C-alpha cells in the first residue's frame, strides 16, 4: 500500500532483450525505443541504466525485486508480448510470465496473449494459457510484425478479432487489454489509434476492454470512446511516467480523463522493468493537478478517493475481486 491506497500494478513484462532474440533490425529498433523511454522519462535523481545494463534478459526474480521488494506494490499483472514474428520468444514470453505469476499465486495474476492472425493456433494457445496456466485475461497488440514488414489488424474485425473474443468468453474471460497509441518499432501507426474500439465494445458488451497507454497521443479519441461505452477503460501504463518529467502534460491528460470519463474508468500500470515503479507511484500519490489548470480549464482535482481507485481498486473490480477483502488479505504496509 502507498498510504492507504492498495496498489495493483496492471503491467510488467519480463523482457528478453538479448541481441540473439531479435529477428534483424526491426527487433533491435523496438528494443531501442523501449530503452529510450527508460532514458527520457526516468527522473534525474533516480538511477538510470546504460543501454548495456538495460538491454538484457529480465528474469522473474528481477521483476519481483523491482515490484515487490523495491516498491509499495501489492499485486501485479505478469503480461506477455506475443511478438513471435519479431523476436524468437515473443520478447516477453508467456511461459516466463506464467512462471512469474506462479511465484506469488495470490499476488501476481497471469494474463495470456496470442497473435490472432495465427488463427486456430491462437485459439488453441488461449485454451492452454487459461486451462493449464490460469490466465485471467488477455492482452493484444494490433500488428503482426512479420520480420520487419508489418501489417495491422483491428479490434472490430469480425474475422480476425471476434473469434478471439468469443473464445475468451467461452473460457470464462471477460477482461481484454489492448496496446493503443505509442507505436513501437516499425508498427503502422494507424492501427494504434482507438477508432476500432467502438465496434469491439458494441459487439461484446459483456467484455471489459482496457485501452493501454490511454491511447497516447490520441487522448481525445480515447476519451470519446470511454464516454460512449461503459465497458471501455484506460490504463495509465507508461503515461504515469510523465508525472515527474512533464507534470503539466500529465495533469492535462489526467484532467481530461477525470472530467470526461471519470475516476472509475482509469487504472494504473508500472511497465516494469522499463521504469522502477516506486518513483512514479510516490509522485502520483503526492500529485495534484495545478490549481491554474483546474481554474482555467475546469479540470476536476485528483482526490484521494480517485487515487485509491486508479492505483488499485478499479483493477481489482475488473478482475472480479472484492476490494476490502483484497486489501485486508494482501495489502502491505508502506515501507518505501
Amino acid at each position, binding site marked *: 500500500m502507498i498510504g492507504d491506497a492498495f496498489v495493483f500494478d496492471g503491467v510488467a513484462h519480463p523482457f528478453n532483450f538479448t541481441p540473439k532474440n531479435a529477428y534483424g533490425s526491426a527487433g533491435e529498433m523496438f528494443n531501442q525505443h523501449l530503452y529510450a523511454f527508460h532514458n527520457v522519462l526516468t527522473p534525474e535523481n533516480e538511477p538510470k541504466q546504460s543501454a548495456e545494463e538495460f538491454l538484457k534478459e529480465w528474469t522473474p526474480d528481477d521483476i519481483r525485486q523491482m515490484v515487490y521488494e523495491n516498491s509499495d506494490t501489492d499485486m501485479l499483472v505478469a503480461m506477455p508480448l506475443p511478438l513471435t514474428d519479431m523476436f524468437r520468444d515473443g520478447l516477453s514470453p508467456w511461459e516466463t510470465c506464467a512462471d512469474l505469476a506462479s511465484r506469488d499465486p495470490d499476488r501476481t495474476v497471469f494474463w495470456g496473449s496470442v497473435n490472432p492472425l495465427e488463427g486456430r493456433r491462437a485459439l488453441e494457445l488461449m485454451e492452454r494459457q487459461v486451462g493449464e496456466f490460469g490466465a485471467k485475461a488477455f492482452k493484444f497488440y494490433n500488428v503482426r510484425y512479420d520480420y520487419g514488414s508489418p501489417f495491422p489488424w483491428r479490434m472490430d474485425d469480425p474475422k480476425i478479432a471476434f473469434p478471439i473474443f468469443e473464445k475468451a468468453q467461452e473460457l470464462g474471460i471477460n477482461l481484454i487489454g489492448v496496446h493503443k497509441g505509442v507505436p513501437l518499432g516499425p508498427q503502422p501507426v494507424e492501427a494504434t489509434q482507438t477508432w476500432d474500439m467502438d465496434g469491439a465494445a458494441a459487439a461484446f458488451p459483456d467484455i471489459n476492454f482496457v485501452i493501454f497507454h490511454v491511447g497516447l497521443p490520441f487522448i481525445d479519441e480515447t476519451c470519446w470512446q470511454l*464516454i460512449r461505452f461503459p465497458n471501455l477503460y484506460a490504463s495509465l501504463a507508461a503515461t504515469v511516467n510523465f508525472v515527474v518529467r512533464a507534470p503539466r502534460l500529465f495533469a492535462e491528460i489526467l484532467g481530461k480523463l477525470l472530467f470526461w470519463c471519470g475516476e472509475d474508468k482509469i487504472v494504473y500500470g508500472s511497465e516494469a522493468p522499463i521504469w522502477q515503479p516506486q518513483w512514479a507511484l510516490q509522485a502520483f500519490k503526492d500529485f495534484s493537478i495545478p490549481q491554474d489548470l483546474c481554474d482555467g480549464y475546469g479540470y476536476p482535482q485528483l482526490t484521494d478517493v480517485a487515487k485509491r481507485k486508479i492505483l488499485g481498486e478499479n483493477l481489482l473490480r475488473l478482475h472480479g475481486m472484492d476490494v476490502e477483502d483484497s486489501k485486508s488479505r494482501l495489502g502491505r504496509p508502506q515501507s518505501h
Partner: protein
Amino acid sequence: MAIRPAETPEWAIRALSEVFDPCCREKGISVVDMGLLRSVVLDDRHARVELLLTSGWCPFAARVLTDVEEAVRAHPGVDSCEVEIVWDEAWSTDRLTESARRKLRFLPDPAVAGDRNAYLAAHTPGGQP
C-alpha cells in the same frame, strides 16, 4: 481560427496538401491542415521549408521530412530542397484548420463544455453518452 503558413507560395501549399503525417493519413488530414507548415521560401531554385512538430518525440518525424522534401522537389521550379524542424515556436491546436478540427473531434476544455452530461447529450448521436 487556423494559423496559415506565412511566406508560402500557393503551389507549395497545394503540393503539401497531399503530404500526410502517418498519424493523420487515415483521416485525410495533411501537414498543411495540421498546421505543421511554417514557411516555404524559394531562393534561386532552392527551397527551404520550415516545419513544426506536434510532439518532440514523434517517431515518424523522419518520414514526414522525406515526404515533404519529395513533394516540394517535384515542383518544376525547384532543383533542391531542405526541410528544417523549428523549435522556437510550439505547435498548438490553434494551428489546425477547421476541417482538421472537425475530423479530430477535439473535446473542449471542461470550463468551456460546462455541464458534462448536457454537452455530451448535445454532441453525441442520439443524445446519449
